[in-house]
């Protein structure tokens, strides 16, 4: 692969491979097993969300409501257990809520043909509002004794590997299998590449689009459960944070074009690793919060600018719907 053919994915990987040895040499304590696991653990939830976003983006959509799906159903679990319901019933309610939410998103996008950006922007607000107004007593839903044992999902470890990392790995394998080995996965790529063409060839595009959003909502819910059990509470206010930009960043930075039909799980992993390395290195260096944002912004700009230099857009390569 010549430098001319180096895509976004290659560039980001190059940045990552450049940054990593620098940190490893310059920062004592960076390249230790314990710190590597911490690094992965800190970005595991982000990575899982990236996978959910990847499924939707590959199918030429976007899911801005992902953070609401992360915050509200798991928050419901914590609230219901706090109110005295059993853990299994609470989990069932949360998954039902996630599926219903995914179905509404998918139906609006696939059947009512509302653009995904606007649909999920509004539905996310709706779900977060519903949570605040009707489901939760406080923004931060606290852990309660009824959940004891469940915190293993976020705090336990398997053979010394923290559970969030294990869950991220499992999610990567599951999503990679779905996208690469199943017919459904092939259909998602086809729809992302050319929706009309896919429909003409007889692919049931609308149900598959609905399914994408249901999967995204369920993965979001799982990520939320991991996050809640990791910090022993569900700060539902996270919906108002900039987390969704980080998720889109991981996906786009990794090289999954927003125009759909391109990329895969590897891209999400690369994007996640780069973000994780930067965050971890800068925390060790005790860089101030604003300093961290500055560095993050500069690295991203460099990656994007290099990409547009090496792979200039023209009429031939530009796709409809390219952002």
């Amino acid at each position: 692969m010549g430098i001319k053919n180096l895509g976004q994915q290659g560039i980001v990987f190059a940045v990552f491979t450049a940054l990593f040895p620098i940190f490893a040499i310059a920062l004592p304590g960076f390249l230790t097993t314990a710190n590597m696991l911490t690094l992965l653990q800190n970005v595991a939830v982000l990575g899982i969300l990236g996978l959910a976003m990847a499924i939707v983006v590959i199918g030429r959509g976007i899911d801005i409501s992902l953070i609401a799906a992360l915050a509200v159903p798991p928050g419901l679990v914590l609230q219901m257990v706090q109110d005295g319901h059993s853990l299994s019933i609470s989990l069932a309610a949360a998954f039902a809520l996630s599926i219903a939410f995914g179905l509404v998103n998918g139906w609006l996008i696939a059947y009512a043909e509302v653009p995904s950006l606007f649909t999920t922007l509004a539905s996310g607000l709706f779900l977060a509002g519903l949570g605040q107004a009707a489901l939760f007593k406080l923004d931060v839903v606290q852990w309660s004794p009824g959940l004891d044992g469940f915190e293993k999902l976020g705090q336990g470890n398997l053979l010394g590997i923290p559970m969030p990392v294990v869950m991220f790995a499992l999610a990567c394998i599951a999503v990679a299998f779905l996208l690469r080995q199943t017919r459904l996965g092939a259909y998602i790529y086809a729809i992302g590449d050319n929706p009309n063409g896919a429909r003409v060839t007889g692919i049931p595009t609308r149900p598959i689009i609905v399914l994408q959003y249901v999967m995204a909502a369920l993965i979001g819910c799982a990520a939320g459960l991991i996050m809640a059990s990791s910090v022993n509470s569900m700060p539902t206010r996270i919906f108002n944070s900039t987390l969704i930009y980080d998720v889109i960043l991981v996906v786009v930075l990794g090289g999954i074009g927003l125009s759909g039909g391109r990329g895969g799980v590897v891209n999400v992993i690369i994007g996640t690793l780069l973000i994780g390395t930067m965050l971890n290195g800068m925390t060790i260096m005790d860089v101030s919060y604003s300093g961290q944002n500055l560095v993050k912004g500069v690295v991203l700009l460099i990656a994007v600018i290099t990409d547009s230099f090496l792979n200039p857009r023209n009429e031939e390569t530009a796709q409809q719907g390219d952002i």
Partner: protein
Amino acid sequence: MTIYGRTFTTTAFGIGLMIAACAPALAQKGLDEPFQAAFKEALAGKTVAYIPVAMNFDLTEGWFAGVKKELEPYGMKVVVRDPNWSTNAGAQALTTLISEKPAAIIVHNPDVQTYAKLMQRAENEGIYIIQVNMGSVYRSSAFVGANWIEIGERDTEAVVKACAGKSNKIAIVQGALSAAASAYTLKGVENVLAKHPEVKVVSSQAADWDAAKAKAITQTVLKQNPDLCGIVGFWDGMDIGTAAAVKEAGLTGKVFVATSGGGERRGACELVKSGAFDLVLSYDVPTQAEQMAGMIKWLVSSGVKPGSVKGSMYTTLIPVTKENAGSETACWNLSDLKK
């Protein structure tokens, strides 16, 4: 005692008896207390508006419930305008309220500047402004709230004390950089550290009041400095994450975690009991609510011109530790306050 002394005592006792005997006769007519009617009249039908940074968390819900409980029985109306973390929406709400002319507005500032001019205008228009917990550069009729400098100092002193004879390495988990409460607390931390040059700060980072970020930072710091002896956190809601990282590293009890908060039972006492926190400096929300309500009663009934008197009521902090975390009085329940 001499015989004269005893006679005097007996006489005094006799006179006392006579008065006591006459008193019921007077009381049958009843005696009007001359001030309460005016007090009731001054309060009845008046409105108190409340602008927190957002509802739905223990502090702001607690203040609202407490103030309502105190003032509603006197016929006052307590209304809330929830800007939900938007400074703009808060400023708009304040502007609208000025034209609606409530008797008093309780303001919870998101920063030290934004509302300052508006609050001054409100007081010129005859509305009492009571600021709570996060003050602005404009000092209004009353400020009720925690002294953040003191919180920073006392939390750090506890951590420094716990570190004595250990590694002397500490970490600081700040709130949001833009928040005055966080910056003031940091100043308090610095004040104490200036007196203890032996203590080394290995990390001082902002976690944006976010538990997940606090956990990520603390995990990395603990991996780099497993001999860390203490952490100064800036808010219990965020430091759940800090404590989770300490627990995961198996260092609970070895790393002293000091933080502060409103003292809600699940947010403070339960976590101290479980060993997650070693010290929570509580600014006891129900007391703050009572003090705000008290200020409003006093101001409205006094008829003093808004802005002509200015005073502060810094909250007396309750240190919640293992010793008192189990007691009924150290913490409060939001559900009880709402009853």
